[in-house]
């Protein structure tokens, strides 16, 4: 299985189906939040790409928005793909992908735990690493904590 990044013909096909997506130079795709679920479903179910493995799901707190990052792999073709969703700073929420990939379950809980991003359309969205009563979301840039060297 040679080559890892996704060929540009495939990207063009995707662009025709989802005109709202933006593709950057290094073939990272930015998806509007509203279309995420249908876009991901297309990626998973279309036999031309067959992205059956959600390898990584995480988030970044940028100065003006949150970004959720998805890394997908297709075992059949060996393609890899990075997709991003930008979310507003107030009450960030994004649709959950647990209905598509089981591996989204714990990773979404981790992102919720550390960033406070809500994943809609799933159950059991609770803290996973920190205890339930923990105040704040530590990986946000404005998180303040006591502790440190004496």
């Amino acid at each position, binding site marked *: *299985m040679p080559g*890892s990044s996704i060929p540009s013909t495939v990207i063009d096909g995707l662009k025709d189906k989802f005109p709202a997506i933006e593709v950057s130079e290094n073939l990272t795709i930015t998806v509007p939040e509203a279309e995420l679920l249908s876009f991901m479903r297309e990626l998973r179910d279309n036999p031309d790409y067959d992205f*059956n*493995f*959600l*390898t*990584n799901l*995480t988030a*970044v*707190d940028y100065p003006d928005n949150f970004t959720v*990052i998805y*890394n997908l792999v297709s*075992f059949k073709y*060996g393609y*890899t793909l*990075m997709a991003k969703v930008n979310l507003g700073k107030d009450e960030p929420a994004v649709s959950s992908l647990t209905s598509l*990939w*089981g*591996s989204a*379950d*714990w*990773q979404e809980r*981790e992102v919720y735990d*550390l960033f406070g991003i809500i994943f809609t359309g799933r159950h059991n969205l609770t*803290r*996973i*690493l*920190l*205890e339930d009563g923990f105040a704040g979301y*530590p*990986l946000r840039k404005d*998180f303040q904590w006591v502790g440190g060297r004496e």
Partner: protein
Amino acid sequence: MLRTEEITLNMGPQHPSTHGVFHVVLKMDHEVITEARPICGYLHRGIEKLAEARTYTQFIPYTDRLDYLAAMLNNTGYVQAVEKLMEIEVPERAEYIRVICCELSRIASHLIAVGTYSVDIGGITGFMYCLRDRERIMDLFEMVCGSRLTLSYMRIGGVAEDLPDEFIPALCQFLDEMPSRLDEYDGLITGNEIFQARTKHVGLLDPGVAINYGISGPNLRASGVFWDLRKNRPYSVYDRFDFEVPLGKRGDCFDRFTCRIKEMRQSLKIIRQAVEQLPEGPVMAKVPKVLKPPAGDVYHEIEGAKGILGYYVVSDGSNKPYRIHVRRPSFINLGFLNELCKGWKIADVVAILGSLDIVLGEVDC
């Protein structure tokens, strides 16, 4: 009419079979598990947050402390991600040294997995034999970097130091002796009847489900899925070596265990080839003293000992990372524990959990 009642049992956070501080709440009907709810986070140290206050080089020691059983692999994944971001060309010799160290680390990690699994099933002897051989690897690591467990040997752009003169002879001796040691484990543990009875046909993992749940590494390959990044998407110089990827058939605990033993043999094969091909030359690329990667992000994956180990690094152009996220294989493999345990007896939970080979430093990050 007999009425049965569900009972709840806490396994952990302090329990000898959870390999650290890990907590499973078991709901049981009689002796059969109806729900196994894992609770992790008892070792959550906030490494990803600490990374934001460290420079790129200062973060290398923290990668050791994620999967402390295979520190070299963690180092490599991280430095390769930063190298990808900065487009640094690593000298050939350094690449080969990295391969040798990574495969040694993989063997060390699998030895612990095999040894502790033998303890979980009830045989302390297997553990003693495995740790005896692991000490040899620790000696080799001590030669190259002076530390046994937390190595921090990789640097962005190469490795910290060239191999000492006595390293290669000692390594060759290890390579000569290790195959017979592996045969010994096969006789002692794998061939043991009680061991087989406890692990065969227990905790079956269907390949389709495993892929859907993002399970990777030996756990995935034991279900018969050919997915090893060293073969499927070769990084570093792995495309120059001739080795096989051991696969299982049934995807039960026994297959997951034997996959690890077979993988150790393949790792030995890789190391032998790497030693033969080891070129001369520098071990460190020319990198600036203060590392300031260009603004942007990168995601890089390598095949770790427990599965696919990925690093997501975001740079804002300064000398400190804006964000580092680690895709920890143990964490994601553990996400499937509930489904895997359902319907099995309580004694099988230990067998299943042990066969997944988790390390809590990595699960909780």
